[in-house]
């Protein structure tokens, strides 16, 4: 077993885990933060995207022990209580989700995208940047609209990712 300590959604956590535990398993099974999903096991689908030290990573491909000392933000850490993050609000407003399974990863990727590229995003950029996130329900049409609207709202409010 290995000891690992990190900050998750602003709370310090420490646990003794099997060294082969993936970050996503640690979040889901140990911390019971089940908003982060596993869709493919091969780093293709992006349902597992969280932020580690402010950058989007696929948590199915990161060992939890390698995140020792890191600050992790998951979908559960994005809203302030019932006040949604602008990107979450945009997904609801623009019907950017159907079954909801890919949605946490999509939103975390989108927030990271805005943090990197700013709030004025054209459709082509959004589509290229979402290449690592697969959605089977929406055909991406409304996800693209939601990301563009969420990006503009984030820029307008001067908001970077909430919990960091």
């Amino acid at each position, binding site marked *: 077993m290995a000891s690992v300590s990190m900050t998750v959604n602003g709370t310090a956590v420490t646990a003794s885990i*099997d060294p*082969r535990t993936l970050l996503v398993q640690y979040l*889901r099974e140990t911390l*019971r*933060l*089940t*908003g*982060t*999903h*596993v*869709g*493919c*096991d*091969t780093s*293709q*689908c992006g*349902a597992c995207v969280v932020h580690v030290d402010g950058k989007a990573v696929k948590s199915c491909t990161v060992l939890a022990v390698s995140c020792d000392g890191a600050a992790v933000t*998951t*979908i*559960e850490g*994005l*809203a302030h209580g019932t006040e*949604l993050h602008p990107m*979450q609000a945009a*997904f*609801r*407003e623009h*019907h950017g*989700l*159907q*079954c*909801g*399974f*890919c*949605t*946490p990863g999509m*939103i975390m990727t989108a927030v990271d995208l805005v943090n990197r590229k700013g709030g004025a995003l054209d*459709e082509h950029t*959004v*589509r*290229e940047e*979402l*290449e690592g*996130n*697969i*959605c*089977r*329900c*929406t*055909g*991406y*049409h*409304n*996800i*693209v609209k939601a990301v563009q609207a969420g990006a503009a709202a984030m820029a307008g409010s001067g908001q970077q990712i909430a919990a960091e």
Partner: protein
Amino acid sequence: MTATGIGAPVRRKEDFRFITGQGRYTDDINQPGQTYAVFVRSPHAHAAIKSIDATAAKASPGVLAVLTGDDLAADKVGGLICGWMIHNKDGSPMRAGGHPALAQGKVRYVGDHVAVVIAETYAQARDAAEKVAVDYTVLPAVVDMVAATQKGAATVHDVAPDNVVYDWHLGDKASTDAAFARAKHVTKLDIVNNRLVPNPMEPRAAIGDYDGGTEAFTLYTTSQNPHVARLVLSAFIGIAPEHKLRVIAPDVGGGFGSKIFIYAEETVCVWAAKKVGRPVKWVSDRTEAFLCDAHGRDHLTHAELALDDKGKILAMRVKTKANLGAYLSTFASSVPTYLYAPLLSGQYDIPAIYCEVEGVYTTTAPVDAYRGAGRPEATFVVERLVEVAARQLGQDPAAFRKKNFIRKFPHQTPVIMAYDTGDYSASLDKALDMADYKNFGKRKRESARAGKLRGIGFSAYIEACGIAPSQAVGSLGAGVGLWESAEVRVNPVGTVEVLTGSHSHGQGHETTFAQLVSDRLGIPIDQVAIVHGDTDKVQFGMGTYGSRSGAVGMSAISKALDKVVAKAKKVAAYALEASDGDIEFKDGRFSVAGTDRSLAFGEVALQAYIAHKFSGQDLEPGLKEGAFYDPTNFTFPSGVHICELEIDPETGTIKIDRWTAVDDFGNVINPMIVEGQVHGGIAQGVGQALFEGAHYDKDGQLVTASYMDYCMPRADDLPSFAVGTTVTPCPSNPLGIKGCGEAGAIAAPPAVINAITDALGHEDVTMPATPQAVWHAVQKVQRVLAAE
């Protein structure tokens, strides 16, 4: 229309939990004392099992049990079933082999279930599964469905020595042949409808639980139809009687058909929970999903269209071979037969149709319904034939279609279906306008100047949804009735719970269904809760597939709401001291006609429960009504999709430049949700046409078993879509709804391939039209040009 009523683009009530990470999918649920199951799967496509040695696995840390097909047999657990009987041309029944949840003596595809290891942790179960030693005698794989029925092929199931499950037909052969004999022109096509893997983003999962005190089982599962799962597990597989088996399908992350079926893993989890005396959880990984979720499509078809000298269609003749895989999945037999051939008339007035279908066993994963289920395959046949016929006759493909459209309704086709209503020309005209068809030639010339090949493709589809009148499907071989149930429970404070047998796994029922209730009862939408997915809450239901939840599920709710209003009127009459006939209900208020005396809906609900104003002998207290709605007909959504694309001849890559969809779904409850369904369907249809294909090698190994090998459509592969509607209300249900869930997936593949072949100038392209395939197709054109 109110802000939350019928026709309003209400934002979804269910979204808050999903966008904040509070959805509750099966894998998010954990039970105290839970154990973990990992399946030992066949590495061979076809093999006899000589022995299974689980000694080392059982001694592995944390292992509680290793169970095999022998244990299932010892407990008299029945096999998985196929619930739709198909008869051969000679009237004899189809030949269905046994389908044990864990293999008994033989494995028939890679991934087939050999044993299950149950351990304290997932990692321990996985480690131990590696230690189960299975001694196989490898048998020849049967991969190619043509070779499967030829002499010398190995037999997959003894009951079908030649691997033919059924040899079925529909239509009138004699009149069809006669029409072909007098035809001035015959268009012929050989068509491959590629094999697909449904790939909902949430992999399947199950938790089986057993309460020794009450002798009752609970199964949490990723199901589109939990009541059907309970029925099958109870009545056929024999796990437990229905009143001792609760099936819960919580939030489900997409289905697309693949979560209709009752699979081995769910069966084993619920059975094993009693064996080990602890809850048993299994979660599929993505490769298991590729190997074992039922696949879709996989047809080989030869099709012919007979035409007169003016281009009027006289007849259609179709011969299809359908790969059903290694076992008959739950509804597999119906998909290439009754969900396929009855759609071959498309939107066209075709006097004679004859279709023959041979269903074939191979040593590949079972094939069953995938979004559209038979209807995309039929539409691909019809729309490719029609397109090629128009080209061969030198006629504009839009004008050719229009000339052959059905114009009078109701219309009886020669293949069972009686279309109730539609206006096919209206959809086509609107689509042509939205797509700016008249300037296509100009755009094609501009593309040519840039060295690109531009093409345009049409697809005028029809589907049969709202499945279906129970007597009708029963006469065709279905093992179940296909009505839907609803119960409307009005609480004393006027809030409402609606229990529905439909199941939402992305379709937004919690919003759409609540809109109907809000509209009819005149109460705010946030006072309405939709309850589904739990057999202990909802009495019975047939679930969600085949675009049936609006047309059938909501019709049941509508019927129950009628009863609620009728009962509430009686309560209001007592409370307002008037006669029943004088009570009017409008905008959420019951009033006495011609007076200013009225009560709000919530006040009447309270009166119903306190029962102070009427005698319980005259009127039962309470306000709760249920309904079972059995449809009077299928519904027939239709529409026209137009795909315009550019091919780069140097690389074979395709860019879809514009996509126009004009659909007639009848009345629409929530246009935002309906548009979303169209978008998603188109993406899956484009996926079939351009990217997706399940491939087995000659040994029966699935070589496309991950997202690194099976190409799912990504955001940068697709355009934004221009979506419009026309409306002819459906006369066959009280809400006028036709259904929208599968339209895009049905319409899109022929639109794409018609556009590619238009750009190329020849028909020799099969799906998926990958850049490599398209590049080769371009070379063929250039070789022809060079030779000229």
